[in-house]
C-alpha cells in the first residue's frame, strides 16, 4: 500500500498529518508524496496526501482542505493554489490549534508556522540563464508552459521571461504557449511553433509534461540543433538529457520537499523550534552532472 493504509495498524497512537497538495496525479506530486511517506514511516507518523486533479481546481482544493481539517489532524501541511481562497480555512485551523505547514510555494499570511518551498521564479531564471548560455546570448526562444493562471505556471514563465528581458538582449522570446502540461498537446504546440518560426533555436518547457512534450515535438518535426531546457525530472526527461535531445533542466527537490514538510510537521507537533522558511532549493542538471549522487538524490524517475 503506497498510502497510510500500511501503517494504519498502529494508527491510533501515531500522530496524524493531513497533507493537501496542489496536485496528485503528476509525477512531481507523486515524488513529494513519496518523500512525505518515507519521512512519515521514519518518524512514525500517519499521513494522508491529497490534491486536486488540476491546478485550476481551486474550489476542489479548498473543499479538500475543509475535509482535512474536519479530520482534526495533529498538523496540516498545505500547498496553496490560491492563498486567499484558503485564508478563512487556515484561520479555522488556527482556531482549532492545528499547526499549518506550507510547502512547495508559500502561503501568504502569518498562519503557517513554517514554509518548505522553492523560489520558482529564481529557478526559472536559472533555466533562462542556462538557455542563454547554450545559445551564446542570441537567437529565438519559445516557451511551452503548463498553464497561464496557476502560481507555479506564472512564476516559471515570468522568472524565465524577466531574466531574458534583463540579461539577454540578443535573444528574442516568442509569446508563451500553454499546453496544460499534456505531453501530446505540448508536442503539437511545439511543432506549430517550429513550423511558424523555423528559426527557433531554443525551447523551454516549464514543467515535466511540457518539457517532454517539447522533446517529442522537436523529434517528430525532425528538427536538429534546437536547444531544449526543461523543468522537473521524470524518466523521459532524464533519458532525453542523457541522449542529448535535451540540453538540461531545472529540478526542484520534490522528495526533499515531502520529507522536509513532514519532519517540520513532526517538530511542530513535538513542540520543537522550526525555522520560518525552509528553502528546499533547486538544481540545474545536464549530461555533465546528472549522475552526480547529489543530483540523483533530487531526481525522480
Amino acid at each position, binding site marked *: *500500500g*503506497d*498510502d*497510510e*493504509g500500511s501503517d494504519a495498524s498502529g494508527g491510533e497512537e501515531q500522530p496524524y498529518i493531513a497533507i493537501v497538495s496542489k496536485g*496528485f496525479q503528476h509525477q512531481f506530486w507523486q515524488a513529494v508524496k513519496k518523500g512525505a511517506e518515507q519521512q512519515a514511516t521514519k518518524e512514525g507518523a500517519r499521513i*494522508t*496526501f*491529497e*490534491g486536486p*486533479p488540476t491546478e*485550476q*481546481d*481551486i*474550489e476542489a482544493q*479548498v*473543499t*479538500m482542505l*475543509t*475535509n*482535512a481539517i*474536519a*479530520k*482534526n489532524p495533529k498538523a496540516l501541511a498545505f500547498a496553496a493554489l*490560491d492563498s*486567499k*481562497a484558503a*485564508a*478563512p480555512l487556515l484561520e479555522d485551523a488556527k482556531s482549532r490549534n492545528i499547526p499549518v505547514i506550507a510547502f512547495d510555494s508559500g502561503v501568504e499570511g502569518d498562519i503557517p508556522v513554517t514554509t518548505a518551498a522553492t523560489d520558482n521564479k529564481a529557478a526559472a531564471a536559472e533555466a533562462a540563464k542556462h538557455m542563454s548560455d547554450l545559445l551564446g546570448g542570441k537567437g529565438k526562444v519559445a516557451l511551452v508552459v503548463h*498553464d*497561464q*493562471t*496557476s502560481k507555479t505556471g*506564472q512564476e516559471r514563465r515570468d522568472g524565465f521571461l524577466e531574466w531574458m528581458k534583463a540579461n539577454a538582449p540578443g535573444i528574442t522570446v516568442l509569446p508563451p504557449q500553454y499546453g496544460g502540461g499534456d505531453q501530446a498537446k505540448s508536442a503539437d504546440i511545439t511543432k506549430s511553433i517550429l513550423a511558424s518560426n523555423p528559426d527557433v533555436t531554443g525551447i523551454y518547457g516549464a514543467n515535466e509534461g511540457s518539457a517532454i512534450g517539447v522533446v517529442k515535438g522537436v523529434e517528430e518535426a525532425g528538427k536538429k540543433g534546437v536547444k531544449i531546457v526543461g523543468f522537473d525530472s521524470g524518466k523521459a526527461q532524464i533519458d532525453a538529457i542523457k541522449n542529448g535531445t535535451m540540453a538540461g533542466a531545472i529540478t526542484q527537490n520534490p522528495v526533499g520537499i515531502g520529507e522536509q514538510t513532514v519532519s517540520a510537521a513532526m517538530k511542530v507537533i513535538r513542540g520543537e523550534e522550526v525555522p520560518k522558511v525552509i528553502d528546499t532549493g533547486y538544481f540545474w542538471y545536464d549530461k555533465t552532472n546528472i549522475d552526480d549522487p547529489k543530483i540523483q538524490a533530487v531526481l525522480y524517475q
Partner: protein
Amino acid sequence: MTTASETRTSLAALPVGVRDKLQQLLAFGSLLVIFIVFSIAGSPNFLTYGNVLAILYSTVVIGTLALGTTFVIITGGIDLSIGTGMALCAVMSGVMIVNWGLPWPLGVLGTILFGGLIGLVNGFNISILKIPPFIATLAMMLVAQGLALVLAHSTPIYFNDTPAYSKISRGELIPNFPNAVVVLAVIAVIAGVLLNKTILGRYTYSIGSNEEATALSGVNVRKWKIIVYTFAGLFIGLAGIMISARLGSAQPATGMGYELQAIAAVVIGGTSLSGGKGSIVGTVIGALIISVLNNGLQILSIPQEWQNVILGLVILVAVYADMVRKKEA
C-alpha cells in the same frame, strides 16, 4: 419478488400523481443509504454538524449550475457552457466590482444578468439558428473560457477591498449556517416552483416531450426555448458569484469540468437527457449524492486513486437501485 409485486399493486392502487411524488421520495433512498453507510463505517468525523455543513457548502456551486441545467435538459437540450460560463461571470463580477468599483450589490445583479446574456446567446443559436444544443453550447464553452482569460488578463481578480462580497458565501445571517447554503436552498425552492407551478415549467416539459406537437398547439416554442436557456443562464451568473465569493477571487481558468459534474447531478437525479422527464428534487439529490460521496471518501481517507473508482461504482449502483425501485412502483 413478492414484496416487489406487493409494492406494485399497492402503489398501482394510488392515483398517478401521488405515485410520482412517492417515487421522488424513493429517490432519496440511495442518498440516505450512502449517508448511513458513511456514518457507520465512516470515522466519527463524518456525522458532525460541521461536516454536514461542509457537505452542503461544497454542493452550492455545482448545485446552482445543476438547477438551471435541469430546465435545459428537460427541454431535451444540453448546456456545456455552464462551467467556463461560470468562470466568465466570476471574472465579470470582478471587473465590475473591483476594476470599475461598482457597489457590490450592483455588481452581483449585473453578473447574474450577464449570465442571462450568455444563456440568451445560447438560446438564440439553438432556437433561431437551429444549431444543435451540444455544438452551440460547446462553442460557447470555448468562447467563454477564452474571454474569461482575456478580461482577467489571465490572473485572478481579488475582492480584497469588498469584504462584504465574500460574506455572500461565507457570511452567516443564520448563526453557524453559511449564507451560500441558504442561497442554494432558496433558489432550489424557486426553481421547483417555476418548474411545477408555472407555464414556463409546463412548456419546458412539453417542448422536451414533443417539440413539434407543442409548436402545433400554438405555443411559441422558439420564444420559450430562448427563455429557458436565458433563465438557465441566470444560474450560471449566480454560480459565478457563489464561487468567486467563496474563493474571494475570480479565477479565470477554473470552471472547465463543472459542466460535466452539474449534468451528472441532474441525470443521477433522474432527469432524462432525451427530455420530457425530470425534477428539481431529483437534481438536488443528485448533487448531494456526488458531494456526500466526495466528502465521505476523503473523510475515510480512502487513497485518492481509489476514490474515483468507488465514486463511479457507487453512482452506478445508486442509479440502478433507484431504477429498480421506480420499476416496482
